[in-house]
């Protein structure tokens, strides 16, 4: 960690977004993670994405569980709201918050331990409910905060820093999410911001649950020879299947895409995702085929990355539940509380 704070220098050429804010306005507290931790790069990517989308900082809700990864919500958008849940329980807090106000931007940040071990059940149900949120797993294959034990995402044969070999099969969050009907499923790498930033932007704009599993090396406990989640290993076994460019509604598509190579998809709010297939025969709109391709690459020891599956405009949690559009704190009391008579009537339905 660093004790020297990042100085605030307002140099004249700092670019400003539509709200007149600079990137620095989307930063948070000083990171206490190890120098070189992948999680810090993801934080920087979130800062970049929120700044570029010109999100009003006070509309951002940051949610997390426990772990080095879960600490990072303190390191971006310090003017947003935040809730640090107990281990593995971030999805239920997110569900509650989202139920109360559907108009905010929900960003969940979790680890492979937080999501795939203690929080696996909560994670699955948030996907089933199609909660409108961006869920980022900062996946390093270990419990970083508790000093590097294997997590449920560790690959068979992967070696711990002290030398023991992992023998249990991994849970892959991407495959799991696909089986649960997720409509936005991506994998990326903390060391590839060019891929990660547009994915975060698209995920934030996606209506429904958006998952990004980000390989994020633990530089202290899992960056050695024999690890399958180190910087070097990830770079060697990393294949981009589909690159997604995100273009907000108000911006023109500037780059020329030749037909057949790129597929622009318009989202519910008019912004567009342009999908570019980099792996031949990969189809990010065919759930079954995508699952097969991902598994095939896994068998070959490769990480397939990019926006691996995408299906626009489906019904999110509020649409399914038919809940109110007005945030609960703005619903007049008389309407919010049915009163004694109203309650009686309601209860009678269940007698």
């Amino acid at each position, binding site marked *: 960690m*660093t*004790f*020297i704070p*990042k*100085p*605030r*220098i307002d*140099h*004249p*050429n*700092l*670019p400003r977004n539509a709200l007149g804010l600079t*990137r620095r306005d989307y930063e948070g507290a000083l990171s206490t993670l*190890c*120098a*070189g*931790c*992948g999680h*810090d*790069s993801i*934080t*920087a990517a979130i800062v970049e994405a929120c700044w570029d989308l010109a999100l009003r900082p006070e509309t951002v809700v940051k949610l997390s569980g426990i772990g080095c990864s879960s600490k990072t919500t303190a390191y971006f958008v310090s003017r947003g709201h935040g809730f640090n849940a107990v281990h593995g329980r971030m999805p239920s807090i997110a569900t509650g918050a989202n139920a109360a106000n559907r108009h905010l931007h929900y960003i969940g940040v979790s680890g492979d331990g937080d999501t795939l071990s203690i929080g696996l059940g909560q994670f699955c149900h948030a996907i089933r409910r199609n909660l409108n949120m961006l869920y980022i797993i900062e996946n390093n294959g270990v419990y970083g905060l508790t000093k590097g034990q294997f997590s449920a995402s560790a690959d068979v044969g992967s070696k711990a820093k002290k030398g023991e070999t992992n023998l249990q099969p991994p849970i892959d969050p991407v495959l799991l999410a696909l089986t649960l009907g997720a409509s936005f499923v991506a994998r990326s790498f*903390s*060391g590839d*911001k060019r891929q990660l930033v547009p994915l975060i932007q698209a995920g934030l704009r996606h209506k429904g649950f958006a998952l990004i599993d980000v390989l994020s*090396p633990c*530089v202290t406990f899992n*960056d050695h020879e024999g690890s399958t989640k180190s*910087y*070097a290993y990830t*770079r060697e076994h990393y294949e981009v299947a589909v690159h997604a460019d995100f273009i907000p509604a108000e911006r023109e598509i500037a780059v020329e895409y030749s037909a057949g190579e790129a597929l622009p998809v318009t989202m519910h709010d008019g912004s567009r995702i342009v999908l570019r297939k980099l792996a031949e025969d990969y189809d990010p709109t065919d759930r079954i085929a995508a699952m097969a391709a991902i598994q095939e690459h896994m068998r070959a020891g490769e990480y397939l990355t990019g926006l691996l599956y995408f299906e626009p405009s489906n019904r999110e949690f509020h649409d399914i539940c038919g809940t109110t559009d007005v945030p609960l704190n703005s619903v007049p009391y008389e309407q919010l509380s049915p009163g004694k008579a109203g309650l009686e009537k309601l209860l009678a339905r269940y007698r």
Partner: protein
Amino acid sequence: MQPTDTSHPDYFHRVVDCQWACPAHTDVPEYIRLIAQGRFTEAYMVNRRSNVFPGILGRVCDRPCEPACRRGRVERKPVAICRLKRYAADHRDEVRALLPKVPRVKNGHRIACIGAGCASLTLANDLMPLGYEVTIFEQHGAPGGLMRTNIPAFRLPQSVLDEEIGMILDMGVDLRLDTPIRSLRALLEDGGFDAIFIGSGAPRGKDLLLPGREEAAANVHIGITWLESVAFGHVDRIGERVLIIGVGNTAMDCCRTSLRLGARDVKVMARKPRQFFKASEWELEDAEEERVQIVVNRSPKAFVVRDGRLAGMTFDVMEYDIDASGRITGERVTGEEFFPADDVILAIGQENAFPWIERDIGIEFDARDVPKVDPVTFQSTREGVFFGGDAAFGPKNIIWAVEHGHQAAISIDRYCRGESLTDRPRPRVTLQSRKMGIHEWAYANEYSPVERRLVPHVSLKERFRKIDIEVELGFTAEQAAEETQRCLNCDVQTVFDAKLCIECDACVDICPVDCLTITENGPEDELRMRLKAPALNRSQPLFVSAPLRQTGRVMVKDENLCVHCGLCAERCPTAAWDMQKSHVHWPHAGDVPEPAPRRGERVSEGRVKGDERTVEAGV
């Protein structure tokens, strides 16, 4: 782009913008740190080694370092480098014991200097400790050249001048005052000197030959001659209404001196608009503070004489067309205007003049009657005769004259030893890590947001009481302490080792001014636009690393706005970035050409650049 060659001494030297811009390469950040630590004597000595006259220059230097200062790009105003120099000079202890020692046994070589200005004095300062016997011939009755005769005492007190010149003369210089050299041939033939250095300045002020000039002669003065007469006490009054023609630094001294000799209404007449003025911004401010009026777009036309006496001047009223880049593309006269005056002072420039150098003794002059001088060795076309200061390439300033003196001293030393003048000691840069331990660096790397401190001035009422009341008071202790913290420690360099980088992006993410990018290499123009923040200031070079091990991409650093905070090195898990203090060894006479590095020092070397070096200030 090719990977940057950081072993060339210019690479790290250039990063230290102030030191690179200083003709004498004064180690600015080093002395500012010493001032911050209260070590004023050491700060003074760091200065003296390169600029010889810290007390004088801390008041009147032209300060090429300040427009170059990185702080001026990161924020708006540069560090008050010059004022801090004065602070060290004013608060130091006695330094006599620290000055270079002069051997009692001489080396047998005798050197003559013509003129006791700063160029000659610097030469003596460098050669006396090496055992040379130096004789200085000066036409006036006091040493110092224009520093004494032209720079007014309200900017540069005589006591400061005397003390710093004294340090050199007391080395045992043979100073012959009131001794004008009238024939170089005679000196060459009969003087018995091994080498001659001509530091006689650019002594001729330009005249303005317009109608009425002759009739008005009694009240029309040439600026530099007039200032000299004031300095020596021959002139002690001037008329009530004074017009100054020209708007350079000499004009500023003339107008402010006039106010101290009884003038009430002083106007500086400029031919062009303000952006074309030659005077430094701070000299204009100081003059305007004293209510001098600067009148633009007036081109002198005639001196008007009534009843046999100067009555004033007529001017053409000018209008200019200025294009988008700021150049004048057309001009026209729109009328004529008369300005009444009792005296007119001409401050329109100086020229070299060498009536005492015979033209048949092997010293060649060019078409403009300027001697042909080698810009690196300072030797004329006659072996053993050297030029420096304003005499060499026309009027410049004190700090350039000092550097000429240093370089000529190297040449004369080599000449007397029979060594080649062109095979000179080369500048060297050594580097030493500033890492102390975890989160600990041996320099103060916090960024201080304090704005530039302003030097207090003597009140407008008080300052005109006498002609030699110094107007600037110098920083208070609090101001000096705050101002030192504005320095960005540019000499604590970011040094990169591509072999160690694992491309985790930690440094890229933490950099507070977005200077770092890891990306695919490319041609410079295209690469500059592809960085995290586009590198638009072309005067600042890019650093491009060797290909990185994992992806073959390169680390690119735009030096422009780096505040040397050290966060990149602090965040790097593999110490691929390190903060290392660079020390530029700018050669002086007597330096060993290739000294062995000290322990822990890395050395980079290259060629001497000489006078052709250009320095672009930041945008």
